[in-house]
């Protein structure tokens, strides 16, 4: 019985050891190899002193080595914390410190970066390079991960936090496995499939290609980093690698539809295209479906805290003027919407905040019980016993078809290429600059990119507070997608009668 994520790997390895598990450039691993490799990683981690329940940071782009690394962490009974290798050093060391990582797992190419990171953290956690292990996979000593239970943490995904530092979303084995199994069935994955999601490991879309593929014994194909830049290169690669299932944010599919020259390629193997993370601009979805009419198109919705909780299949001709709905709840999950006055949304056209109950709902935010209690709340419609449900903060309306449609946020979070950005975190980074007195960050809608960020700043009058200086400052603290595109300077920021920054006024300026 598979109740831990690593059981997916051991079962696939027992069933089909010689079939490809991961294909990344020249490096490939079969299920048998991946199983043995990850066991070596686990034994090496245990030798380094990693104990059950520990956190282990993972600094590696998606690859066979990274997947062996993450399964190794799980087999050691620990929980992995995937890092964004491109994030600024200060942000990475914050995540390693905040999670209390007992070790850092990395690949050959990132060993130097991992060493610098470890040196930057109190206690300097030991580093394990997955490429150079001299540990035998076979041993009589049982792996610590075999004692884990499904409620134990499998991984922590850090996302933007409104108070200025990232927050860690805790996902248990049960949480992730419930999604992986649903998604594998929903996409009809089989061992012949070649599955690609360009999402990096710290982004929860990658849970699909890593774990659902393994559940089905399919091959996870890694899009090479250089190819991901050029839409035509992506299309070339999709054809050459005979990719059958694709899962990404809409903006990448928009680029493919507009600049991929898709009709020049034989993409007949591509049978399912799934998108999630942000609203797909309808005219680009229609263009994609016109360029590439044969695959199934699925719109999946859900925050990192619940993974996917609703799904909608887009039929031919349905992509038109309005964004496609987020659909209805996944199997084994319930969603409902609550009006501002606390009533259950039941009539078409009514708007409310979406709540989620089900096995994919996260365990909470790491080390932030108060923040967790704001979003994991008692089900307001269950008087007889306490049940925790997740408040998404997303506003939806109920459609006459029974589908939910996404309306917007009830707070100041925006999506940029599918990444969550809390405007407050960007503002907090700006306020760290000694010459910035006031700062407000506003989203500017962008047809191709979803949103861009506009920073409005009032300085102390220091002459060296230029746009370039502001951007350079931001890049020390924030990953690229959170750095504002537009920077404006004002004498002072407009205020409302209650003394708050007048965002509505600024937005219309």
């Amino acid at each position, binding site marked *: 019985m598979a109740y831990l994520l690593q059981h997916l790997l051991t079962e696939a390895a027992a069933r089909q050891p010689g079939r490809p598990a991961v294909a990344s450039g020249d490096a490939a691993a079969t299920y048998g190899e991946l199983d043995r490799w990850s066991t070596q990683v686990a034994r090496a981690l245990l030798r380094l002193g990693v104990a059950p329940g520990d956190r282990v940071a993972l600094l590696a782009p998606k690859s066979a080595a990274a997947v062996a690394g993450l399964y190794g962490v799980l087999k050691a009974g620990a929980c992995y914390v995937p890092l964004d290798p*491109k994030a600024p050093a200060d942000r990475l060391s914050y995540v390693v410190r905040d999670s209390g990582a007992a070790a850092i797992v990395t690949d050959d190419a990132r060993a130097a970066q991992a060493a610098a990171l470890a040196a930057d953290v109190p206690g300097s956690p030991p580093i394990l390079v997955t490429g150079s292990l001299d540990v035998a996979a076979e041993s009589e000593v049982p792996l610590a991960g075999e004692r884990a239970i499904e409620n134990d943490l499998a991984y922590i995904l850090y996302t933007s936090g409104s108070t200025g530092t990232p927050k860690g979303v805790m996902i248990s084995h049960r949480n992730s496995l419930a999604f992986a199994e649903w998604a594998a069935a929903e996409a009809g994955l089989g061992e012949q499939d070649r599955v690609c999601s360009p999402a990096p490991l710290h982004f929860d879309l990658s849970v699909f290609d890593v774990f659902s593929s393994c559940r089905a014994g399919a091959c996870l194909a890694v899009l090479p980093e250089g190819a991901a830049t050029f839409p035509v290169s992506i299309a070339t690669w999709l054809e050459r690698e005979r990719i059958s299932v694709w899962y990404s944010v809409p903006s990448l599919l928009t680029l493919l539809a507009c600049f991929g020259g898709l009709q020049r390629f034989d993409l007949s193997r591509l049978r399912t295209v799934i998108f999630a993370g942000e609203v797909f601009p309808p005219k680009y979805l229609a263009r994609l479906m016109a360029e590439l009419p044969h695959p199934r198109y699925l719109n999946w919705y859900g925050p990192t805290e619940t993974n996917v909780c609703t799904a909608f299949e887009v039929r031919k001709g349905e992509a038109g003027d309005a964004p496609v709905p987020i659909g209805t709840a996944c199997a084994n999950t319930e969603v409902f919407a609550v009006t501002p006055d606390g009533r259950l949304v039941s009539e078409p056209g009514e708007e409310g905040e979406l709540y989620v109950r089900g096995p994919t709902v996260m365990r909470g935010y790491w080390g932030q019980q108060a923040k967790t209690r704001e979003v994991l709340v008692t089900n307001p419609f269950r008087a007889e016993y306490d049940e925790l449900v997740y408040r998404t903060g997303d506003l939806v309306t109920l459609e006459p078809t029974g589908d939910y449609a996404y309306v917007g946020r009830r707070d100041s979070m925006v999506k940029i290429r599918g990444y969550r950005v809390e405007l407050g975190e960007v503002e907090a980074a700006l306020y760290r600059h000694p010459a910035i007195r006031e700062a407000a960050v506003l989203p500017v809608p962008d047809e191709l990119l979803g949103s861009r960020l506009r920073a409005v700043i009032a300085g102390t009058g220091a002459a060296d507070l230029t746009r370039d200086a502001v951007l350079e400052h931001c890049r020390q603290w924030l990953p690229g997608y959170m750095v504002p595109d537009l920077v404006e300077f004002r004498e002072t920021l407009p205020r409302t009668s209650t003394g708050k920054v007048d965002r509505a006024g600024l937005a219309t300026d």
Partner: protein
Amino acid sequence: METVINDYVSRELVQDPRLLPLADDTSLLETGILDSLNLLRLVVFLEERFGIAVGDADLLPDNFASVNAICGYVRAREPGKQEAARG
């Protein structure tokens, strides 16, 4: 032209300060400077600044691998030289 393009890439696209100053022959791909989004921003900049039109078939690694490669591409695409670029 090298200076103009290097300035733009350094100021707008380079995320990691450790990559500065940027040499004209530094790979924009291996360093991860050029992702799909930055590529589009760069294309808009080149079209506005140099008055060229960049077609989707031109969005290839060879044309954007470094500042030098971009300059070579732009020179071939400048008004009056379209034929040369196609050849």
